[in-house]
């Protein structure tokens, strides 16, 4: 069981950009991503899943430091100003680390 240190990048944002954002993440070199539904409140008001047009998603990406940095940069440049969004990063240890670039 090879295990190693990686970054977990979490993005919470509007469901409407799911397709585009996931495509961007793959393009930036991440080996995968996980999406789940969420709702919440932040600087740009309440976002409630009760009405599909304004629901949120949480995207998680396990990746190396370099890709994490480039996701953070790209995503914040491209979307942050116009879409409700937060992005954070934490340190994790993954098993079978070799499959995460």
């Amino acid at each position: 069981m090879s295990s190693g240190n990686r970054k977990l990048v979490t993005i919470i944002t509007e469901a409407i950009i799911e397709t585009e954002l996931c495509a961007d993440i793959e393009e930036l070199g991440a080996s995968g991503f996980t999406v789940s539904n969420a709702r919440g409140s932040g600087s740009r008001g309440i976002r409630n899943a009760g009405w599909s047009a304004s629901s949120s998603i949480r995207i998680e990406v396990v990746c190396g430091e370099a890709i994490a940095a480039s996701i953070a940069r790209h995503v914040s440049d491209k979307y942050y100003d116009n879409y409700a969004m937060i992005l954070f990063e934490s340190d994790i240890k993954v098993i079978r680390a070799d499959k995460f670039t």
Partner: protein
Amino acid sequence: MDPVIWFFALGVFAGLARSDLRIPPAIYDLLSMLLLLTIGLKGGVELARAPMAGILPQAAAVVAMGFTLPLLLYPIARKLGRFERADAASLVAHYGSVSVATFAVGVAFLADKNVSADSQLPLFLVLLEVPAIVVGVMLARRNQAAGQWGRLLHEVFLGKSIVLLVGGLLIGWLAGPIGIRPLEPLFFDLFKGVLALFLLEMGLIAASQTKAVRQSSLFIIAFGLMVPVPLALIGALLGWAIGLSVGGTTLLAVLAGSASYIAAPAAIRIAVPEANPSLSLTASLGVTFPFNIFIGIPIYYHIATVIHGGVG
């Protein structure tokens, strides 16, 4: 008053009173899917009966109206509302486009009055959804990159509402009045009940907009209240001019006077992300939608009968 309207009122009450009543998103999706398919199927079955000949020029006139309405509204939003270009463009895209739920309430209203409508109206509903969004995006960015346009048109034409409406139209048209019979119990008989549940949810959503309405500028509220009737009048005149019946004229007025809150917000959110989405949504959902279903639709019906000389 049609009982489905009371469901909207019940939703508004529950929302304002902060009841824990919620419609799960999956159920909202089911209800809207059923409404869209029903409207499409019904229209398709009627089209199968009608001669297609005269419809083409009518359709062209309706599309032309779809391009014109947002252009008429744009100066108002810019000058009177003092909106930035992006926000003004977003607002007129919403009001030039149409609301399926308002249309459904109009259909139910006419059914209650035993007034029949021309079969091509669902087709016009589809045709009116798109042009205003295109105009809105063009107003916001005249030098839009071509790639973005592709994505936008894809988003709009293949958005689920158009796919279900057009799909329903085609299937209804192919199946015809007899082939459609086995589908009637789900899609036709349940229509009013489904609409009632949908309006319950719309009431909850509208109630959740009240804070936004109260915080918004007076202009947005005035816009949401005063724009529908003139727009509907244009729609009614056009309906009369192209030879629609009283029912069809009413529904074209309803379409013109209604504001989109599904297709337009989604498309504009992608094409003009710098526009503040809550401005247009507050107006269309929090002000115009309730106005139309309580007050607007009876007025538009009255206008249609007057134009057709039905009064006096």
